[in-house]
């Protein structure tokens, strides 16, 4: 029987003790694995949330809210100032307007009799979006409560863009994709009367590439039909910014500057720099703050997981260390006898290390099974605690607002928290086994030293 086999069999020498040690160590190892899985899951979610939020900063006139006015439009000079700020990768200028169907009524806030029609920003196109009960209610509210709304139809959103090389410039429309279904992208530097129209608007008005329509009293040629992934975006028109500036009589005007920052980590710095440069004339927004708020509970879980992982590993090492010290002390005489009959310290230490490894590996297998069973319930408890803690810290209700806020940007914090599930891959199992081997070796190191100090003469003296 070799040293390794002897060490292996020694692990089962006292079945009650073996079961006890395996159970205690398995709990410790399962906790370490659960925490490792939680840590990795949460880290993956944090990265996911960060990447979904992106590295975009939006600059708009101070106080502006949709088409309800507020602030003075931005200028090319301000856009140039923004491009000069460090870490700004690109700047896209946009100018938006709303086109109304010829003859469509517009409420003025007075009685229906005061409704007027708009002369300039008109079009012959029908919107592909119907007002619906929500839109009709809004019109009625604006119209003194009257339910008779004349010939009102939903305005068509028109966006002039200075750069169409990516979807970044269209982010103000909430666009996450921009697929050309037919025709070509327009040249965003052009000032010709060219337009791309969303697929829903094209279908509504039987438009195709080469068709024309009227806007601002002029003829516009359709160069492309696009699919932007939502009914709203597919009901819009995209044109070069200069064309929109010319047609709407707002030369040089910009209502939104979309700033792409070179890294997510620099978003806050760029935001601050823009604010410093342009002062109170602009509103600067990004989803960084929301992201920080959203990620805060995840960071808490990550910290708890990390410290618990370290604690569980330390506890595991201490358990195996104390176990091996106990075993070595108990077998002191046997060690002395082995030395007396010719065993070297190395042989005996190897035998005890193998014993420690066997105990730890069995505990690891049991710990992994326990860890698999417990990982999601424990992560769920951590999530609930982290959210509750966040709500308390924020002064009540903020946690829920946070969840709602998070839900607004795709892989939201709320969803991130609700949908957190641990995954066990080969990597986790390898980490677990590696940790077990490490724990076994660390736990055996001092007992091995004790073994080397046992003098075989003690065996004779203790007879």
């Amino acid at each position, binding site marked *: *029987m*070799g*040293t390794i086999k*002897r060490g292996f*069999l*020694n692990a089962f*020498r006292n079945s009650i003790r073996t079961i006890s040690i395996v159970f205690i160590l398995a709990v410790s190892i399962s906790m370490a694995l659960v925490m490792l899985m939680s840590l990795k899951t949460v880290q993956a979610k944090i990265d996911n949330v960060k990447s979904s939020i992106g590295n975009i900063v939006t600059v708009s006139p101070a106080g502006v809210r949709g088409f309800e006015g507020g602030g003075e439009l931005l200028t090319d000079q301000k856009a140039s100032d923004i491009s000069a700020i460090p870490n700004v990768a690109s700047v896209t200028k946009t100018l938006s307007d709303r086109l109304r169907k010829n003859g469509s009524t517009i409420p003025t806030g007075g009685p229906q009799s005061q409704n007027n029609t708009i002369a300039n920003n008109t079009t012959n196109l029908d919107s592909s979006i119907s007002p619906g009960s929500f839109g009709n209610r809004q019109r009625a509210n604006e119209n003194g409560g009257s339910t008779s709304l004349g010939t009102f139809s939903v305005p068509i959103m028109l966006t002039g863009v200075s750069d169409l090389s990516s979807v970044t410039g269209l982010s103000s429309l909430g666009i996450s994709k921009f697929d050309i279904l037919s025709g070509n992208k327009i040249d965003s530097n052009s000032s010709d009367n060219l337009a791309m129209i969303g697929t829903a608007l094209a279908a509504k008005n039987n438009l195709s590439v080469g068709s024309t329509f009227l806007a601002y009293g002029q003829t516009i040629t359709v160069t492309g039909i696009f699919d932007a992934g939502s009914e709203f975006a597919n009901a819009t028109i995209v044109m070069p910014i200069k064309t929109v500036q010319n047609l709407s009589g707002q030369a040089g005007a910009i209502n939104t500057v979309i700033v792409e920052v070179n890294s997510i980590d620099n978003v806050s710095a760029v935001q601050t720099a823009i604010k410093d440069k342009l002062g109170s004339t602009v509103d600067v927004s990004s989803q960084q703050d929301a992201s920080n708020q959203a990620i805060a509970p995840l960071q808490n879980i990550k910290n708890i997981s990390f410290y618990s992982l370290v604690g569980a590993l330390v506890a595991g090492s201490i358990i195996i260390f104390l176990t091996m010290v106990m075993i070595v002390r108990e077998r002191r*005489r*046997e060690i002395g*006898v*082995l*030395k*007396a*009959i*010719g*065993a*070297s310290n190395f*042989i005996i230490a190897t035998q005890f290390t193998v014993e420690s490894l066997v105990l730890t590996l069995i505990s690891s297998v049991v710990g992994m099974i326990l860890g698999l069973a417990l990982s999601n319930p424990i992560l769920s408890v951590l999530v609930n605690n982290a959210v509750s803690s966040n709500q308390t810290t924020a002064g009540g209700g903020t946690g829920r607002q946070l969840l709602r806020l998070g839900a607004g940007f795709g892989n939201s914090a709320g969803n991130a928290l609700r949908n957190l599930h641990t995954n066990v891959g080969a990597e986790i199992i390898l980490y677990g086994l590696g940790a077990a081997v490490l724990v076994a070796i660390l736990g055996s190191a001092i007992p091995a030293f004790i073994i080397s100090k046992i*003098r*075989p*003469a003690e*065996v*004779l*003296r203790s*007879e």
Partner: protein
Amino acid sequence: MLKIMSVSKKFKSGDSFVNAVDNISLEVADGTFAAIVGKSGSGKTTLLSLLGALDRPTSGQILVDDRDICRLGDRKLIDYRRNKIGFVFQGYNLVPNLTAIENVMLPMEFAGLKKTERKKRAARLLKEVGITEEKFNRKPTRLSGGEQQRVAIARALSNKPSLILADEPTGNLDSATGKVIVKLLENLAKTENTTIVAVTHDESISKDAKQTFRLRDGKLVSTSS
């Protein structure tokens, strides 16, 4: 030939030193069954541990086959214990979770013998000391005291040592079994030409021994042969 020359061993006890073995010199010829006798605390076990290279003397020389074992380094001491010495303990000290034959094979494993050879030789030795084959695979707890001591003697013989050191080999046995064990050791000394040094309180062993060394307070007070 075992030759001890002016060997002393001091232990620290509080602020003073105790001479456990005090300037002892003696010689035991090859193939001799020798006994070291004396009361408790006379230094006989300390002397035995010095002979077995389990401890180092404070001064003096111990020559085994003309080699001073007191000057051996740690690695050579391990080789010496593996190949030149066999130990028989009062409490048998068999490894409890190994069978009788596995206990006898253990020193041979440390010496690097192949498994088949280890097994063959262990079986032969067990038969020689009177263990029947059906008991080869029994663990020590399922053997009587006498049987355990026989297994311990077989283990001591496994690497064909030139010197067997026995510490109270009959101490845990009844007198009849004790006599059988002493007879076994005596025969081994003759047939295997192995030197046997037994430490004992048992006067009957000293009667059977070819040489008897009597110790008192760490000093050799008489030698008889």
